[in-house]
Every structure is written in structure tokens, then in C-alpha cells.
């Protein structure tokens, strides 16, 4: 006997399990906006952290799939220097990103901007997973009910073979 509350509980557990980390991993972006507001002079460590943050989301133009942060190539090295210089000059991370965006086009961003058509790449997986979850849970529930109905009808026959 499966009571509906338990199914809902299972569903909720999964939703939470998937949603919480999702939220957690969008966090860095909002942190970036936060830091963009305050324009006080940066300590070296802060500056380097911010360079890393920006560099890891820019594509190294001469590499296959590495970010400017990860690539050991000379091109990436120069770009890191450029980011550092611009931050030191007081530009906000948004302005630095805009600088590279203007120079290289959207291609330079390793994370497609969530706008316009690009929403597809962000939302389709979530929609597919959520839809799939609902479908699986509903199907499973129907199967359980059908199974119980059949079991009730077949009680004479004895239990199925257990492997």
C-alpha cells in the first residue's frame, strides 16, 4: 500500500536534492555582481581571485577547449595580464568581460549568456529532467496500482518465482 504522501515525499526529496545544488552553483555569479558594486582598491589576493574568476569563463582563443585561466599558452598568459591591468585600472569585472566580448564576440564566453535563443541551452535540460521526473513518478505509480490490482486477481495462483 503506497499512500500518496510518501510519493510526494520522494518527489520532494529529489526535487530538493537537485534544486539545492543548482542554487549553490549559480551563487558565484551573484557574488561577482556583488563585488562589482564596491570599487575600493583591491589587495593582491583579491585581485588575483578576481582575475581567476574572469579568466576561467573566457575561452583561450588559441586552444581547443581550455579557459584563459587553465591554458598554459602564451596567448592566455597575455589575456590574464590584460584582465589584471584593467581591474587595476579600476574597471569592474562586467566591464572587463564586455571588453573581451566586444573584441572577440560571443564566442569568447565559455558560458553562453542566458538571454534570447541561448535560454534553450540553459532551460531544456532542466525542463527535460523535471518532465522526466514527473513522467517516471506517474508511470511508477500507475504500475504499482495495476500490479496490485493484478495481484489481487491472481491470489489463487501463488507467488511468482523469486530469483
Amino acid at each position, binding site marked *: 500500500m*503506497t499512500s500518496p504522501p*510518501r*510519493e510526494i515525499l*520522494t518527489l520532494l526529496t*529529489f526535487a530538493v*536534492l*537537485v*534544486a*539545492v*545544488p*543548482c542554487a*549553490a*552553483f*549559480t*551563487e558565484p555569479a551573484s557574488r561577482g555582481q556583488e563585488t562589482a558594486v564596491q570599487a575600493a582598491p583591491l589587495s593582491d589576493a583579491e585581485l*588575483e581571485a578576481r582575475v*581567476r574568476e574572469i579568466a*576561467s*569563463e573566457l*575561452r583561450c582563443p*588559441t586552444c*581547443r*577547449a*581550455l*579557459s584563459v585561466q*587553465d*591554458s*598554459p*599558452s*602564451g596567448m592566455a*598568459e597575455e589575456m590574464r595580464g590584460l584582465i589584471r591591468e584593467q581591474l587595476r585600472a579600476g574597471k569592474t569585472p562586467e566591464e572587463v568581460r564586455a571588453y573581451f566580448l566586444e573584441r572577440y*564576440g*560571443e*564566442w*569568447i*564566453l*565559455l*558560458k*553562453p549568456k542566458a538571454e534570447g*535563443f*541561448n535560454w*534553450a*541551452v540553459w532551460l*531544456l*535540460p532542466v525542463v*527535460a*529532467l523535471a518532465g*522526466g*521526473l514527473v513522467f*517516471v513518478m506517474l508511470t*511508477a*505509480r*500507475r*504500475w*504499482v496500482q*495495476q*500490479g496490485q490490482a493484478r*495481484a489481487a486477481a491472481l491470489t489463487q495462483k501463488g507467488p511468482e518465482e*523469486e*530469483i
Partner: protein
Amino acid sequence: MTNTIGYLAIILALFLSLAGAAAAFRAAKTRSSALTLLGRRAAYGVFGLATLSILTMVFALVAHDFSVSYVAQVGSRSTPLFYTVISLWSSLDGSILFWGWILAGYTATVVYIYRDRYRELMPAVTGTLLAVNVFFWLLLAWPANPFQPVFPVPPDGPGPNPLLQNHPFMGLHPPLLYLGYVGMAVPFAFGFASLITGVVGGDWIRAVRRWIMAPWIFLTAGIVAGAWWSYEVLGWGGYWAWDPVENASFLPWLVATAFLHSIMVQERRQTLKTWNILLVIATFLLTLFGTFLTRSGILASVHAFTEGLIGPFFLGFITVVLVVSLALVAWRSDQLRSEPALDSLASRETAFLLNNLLLVAFTFTVLLGTVYPLIAEALRGVKVSVGAPYFNQMSIPIALALIFLTGVGPALPWRRGSPDLLARKFLWPVAVAVLAGLAFWLLDVRHLGAWATLVLAVFAVGLLVGEFWRPAQARRRAHGEGWSRAVLNLTAKNRRRYGGYVVHLGIVVIAVGIALSSTYRREREATLQPGETVVFSGYQIRLDSLYAGREPHREFAEAAFSVARDGRPLARMTPRMNYYPMSTQPIGTPHVRTRPTEDLYLTLMAYARDGSTATVNIIVNPMVVWIWIGGGVVALGALFAISTAAGGAEPTRSRGSSTERQAEPVEAGVGGAER
């Protein structure tokens, strides 16, 4: 001469596989034993010809016969012998030849092993495998012919891609990957044959169970080895960049993993028949699609791939396989219909359904991210990139849910779990996980993703250990065995189950390694003069000297560092830059010092020509080694799981002998409680 022999072998292999496929398919319909035999012999013949062509190529490479187009493309007199031989798979045509040879090898092996079994299924299996052979030998005979004559014969060649001759690991990682990739044709052939013949239960399940595992093990090992190669060679301190090439190997792995779980549901409950067929078809299609993506040049630009014929060939073959398979599935829908079989939501079956959902959603996400640049270019006319930041953000939640299931799935009994039993099984793991959660938080693991991974890992390991511990405890009571003997007997009795649990433990270890190394990686760059020391993360790193040297196939610049901790010397480390004649960019070789808790990873980034300074990138990567160890655990567990007699029944299934009957009360003691 060499060209003639090699090309003749390819052409003969093409026609023989064509004739063999025709004979075998005809035999599937008429049950003619003469035609069956013909198909089988054709499979052996194709393998013989494939071997001849690949030996010809190896011979041409070693003999530096530059009249052979492929040798002229990748050969060089200065390349060491080892790299000359493995340059067989360093470029397009050669790797497709290698692919064809492995495919022919799988075909011959399968046909030989099952020569006297599965009489209804095998002719169609032979036919399907030979039909796939036809495609690859056609590819080799025409657009990817590696034996084109070159005239005038050049005196020397450029040598293989520098990156591919920079580390001996290139001799291991591609063959493993190919064995996994190409091997997925075998479960596909069994699935396809089951559709043709209408044998949708029984035999095809028994055969495919083993034949999904073998390529799965190779593919897993190949992916882990590829990550290791990337880490040891590329100098960026990471192991997975979500490069399309990497994604292409990961996609079929995900679907194959879904399949090898859901096939168990069909085995026990005779349900999910259509779903399983679809998964096995999807796995094969994704290997083709991955090859298409990475080999056609389409990723460089949508417009690039039409320049060669290989892209259109692959696209055509993918379309044919897709359409024919789906048509067959529709045609057999009556046989594929299965009774819904689910007794309770708190059951193993539900865990498998969720596992399949997550793995397929994961596949969809990675696939979408990988092809999105193409879609955007085609529809919007704008080039975009989808890289690691996207994939990480999207995949971490799914991966966490999967870690959760690695523990919960095995702990849930088939059919239904009584609340009592579930409470007993889950109480301790939940308690320990909660305590661990607190402990990790207090230990300053405050990154949510890493923290959640660790907590779920503790939870999953707790549940998995319980799955070993409880039945072992029951055995001890029933037989008075010691701990080690009880666990040994237990696992030997049901290798598939316990091997699978070991695989799950390995996956958890990999997840922990990935979570910690990616979150707590520390890095800094330093420019040093000889004699100067930089202190980073507790290491004192001193530049001793900077020097240049020459090897037969390359020149190099190397920096020697002494590494110490608290004044105690630890290691001498020598990252370097290699200069290959055919490459404008230097290829760095990092130096990695691996320890159980953290790796120290030095990359030479730049240096002054006069030797006055060297710039080094210092990366401290915690727990990376556990990814490789976890990979080994996965492989060993999977090998143990399939280590029963080839194609034979599980020992637990035959309950004839007296010793096995003795074991039954133990199993029943546990299983009984589960009911």
C-alpha cells in the same frame, strides 16, 4: 607495393563483409545452416584481411615508406620507434583503420564464442556486425583510404602531432577507448538481431549482459586514462575540460551505464523491453555520432565538414541506423509490449528508473551543450562557445543525485522494502552522514558542492558497506566463518552483485576526488631567478637551474627545482618545454609529484633565453590521485562482476549442488527479511 597489398586487403574485407552480411541475414530468415556457416567464415575472413591491412600499415610506418599517404602524413625518420608504431591512431585515416580492425576482431570473437549457441539469434547478430563492417571498410576504401600512393615519394615526413608523441600514455589511452567505443557495436548487434528475429527476451538478455560489460569496462578505463593523460601532459593541472572529444567518449558511457542497470530490471521483471532496446541503439548511435563530431571537422565550423566526404558518410550511416532501428522497434512493438511490474515505490526497480532518468538527462545535457555551438551557428549565425563553466554548473546537481543513488539503489530490495528493513538499513548510514556533515563543516569544508559530495559519499559508502556486512554477519552466524572468509564466500557466490557494489564504491571515490580537487585547487605563478625560492602552500620551491637540451625528435628547455617543506627536502622537479620541428608552439611537460592527500604540479610557463629567469605555474591539487584509484576500483569491480565462465549462468542461479543449497538459508535469511 605496400599500398597495393594494404588497399587490396581493405577492398577484399569490404566485399567479404558485404557477402557475409547478405548470407547471414538470409540465414536468419531461412535458418539455413550452410548460409550461417558462410556468414561465420566471412567474419573470420574479414578479421584476417583486417589484420593483414593493419600489419601492412605498421610495417610501412616502421619502414618509413613515405609512398604510403598515411605514413607521409604522420611518419618521420626522427620519431622514436614506439611513437612511430602508435602513430597508427594519431590521425584520421589510421585511426579509422584501427577502428575497422577492432570491429573485425570483435565480430570474429563474438561469432566464434557463440558458434554453437543462440542458434536463432546468431545469424542476425553476425549479419548486423558484418553490415557495420561494410560501412567502415567502405570508408577505408574510399574517403579515408590510408594507402593512397604518394608521388614523388618525400624523403621524410612531419611526424605525428607533437601532443600525441609527448607521453607514452598515448600508447594506452586510445586503444582502451577504441575497444570500448567499437565494442558497443556488439550489444547493438544483439539488440538489432533480437528485433529482426523477434527473440526479445531470454537469449538476447543473457548475451547482451556480458557484452555490454566488456566494452563498458574498456570505455571506463579509456576515459579515466584519457583524463590522466590530459593531467600528466597538457600542463594545465586539470583532467577534464569538457572538450567535444571528451564529451564524445562520455555520452555513450552514460547511456551504456543506464542500459546495464535497466537490463537488470528486464531480466528480473520482464519489463522495460522497448526502453532497453532503445538504450542499446542510442549507445551505438552515440559512438557513431561522437566519431562524426570529432572526426568530420564539423565542430570547427558547420561549413567545414562538407569539404571532406567522411562527415556526410557518417551522417548518412547514422541516419540509416536510426531509421531502420526505429522502424524495427515499431514493427516489433507487439513482442516488446511488457506487463508493468512494480510492487512498490520503495524498491530497487524505482531506483533503477530514477537512475535511468538521471543518466539520460545527463546525456541530453552534455549532448545539447556539445552541439549547441552548431545549432547557434546554423540558426543565429553567431559563433558561441559552451565550455566547462556551463557543463560543471549543469552536471553537478545530476552527479550529486547519482551519488545518492549509488548507495540507495543497492540497499533497496527488489519488489518492495518493508519499512522495518529500510529503517534498519538506513539508520546508521543516515546517522553517520549527518555526523560527517557536521564534521566536514567544522573542518572548514564550506563549499556547498564539495560538502554535499562528501556527505552523500559517506552516506552511500555506509549503505554499501551494510550490503556486505549484513549478509556476511548472517554467514558468520550460520557457518561460524571468520569475517574475511564470510565476505569472500559471500562475494564469490554472487559476483555480479558484489562486483557491481565494488564498482559503485569506485564511482564514489572518483566523485570525492573530482569534488575536492576541483574545489580546493590552489595555484600561483612565480618568476624566479636561479637560486631564488618561492613559498606556496607550505612548499619551498627553489629554482636550481635552467638548461636546454636536444633529443632525436625534439629540443627542450628544462627548469630544475628543489622542493622542500619546513626545510626538509622533498623532491627535485623538472618541468620542461618541448620544441618539435613541425610545431610553432612549444609543448610543455609538467612535473607532477603525486601523494595521497595532494599533488604538487609544476608547469614551466616561460623563461628568459639567457637563463636568467624562469616562470613557473605552481598548482596544489588535493586528492587527485583518488580519481585514478577510483578508476582502478571500478575496473576491478566490473571485471570481478563478469568473471564467471564465459556466457555461463551465474552460480547463484543454478541451485543444484549441495554446497549452494547450503548457502541458501543465509541468502534467504537476508532476502526473507527483505520481503
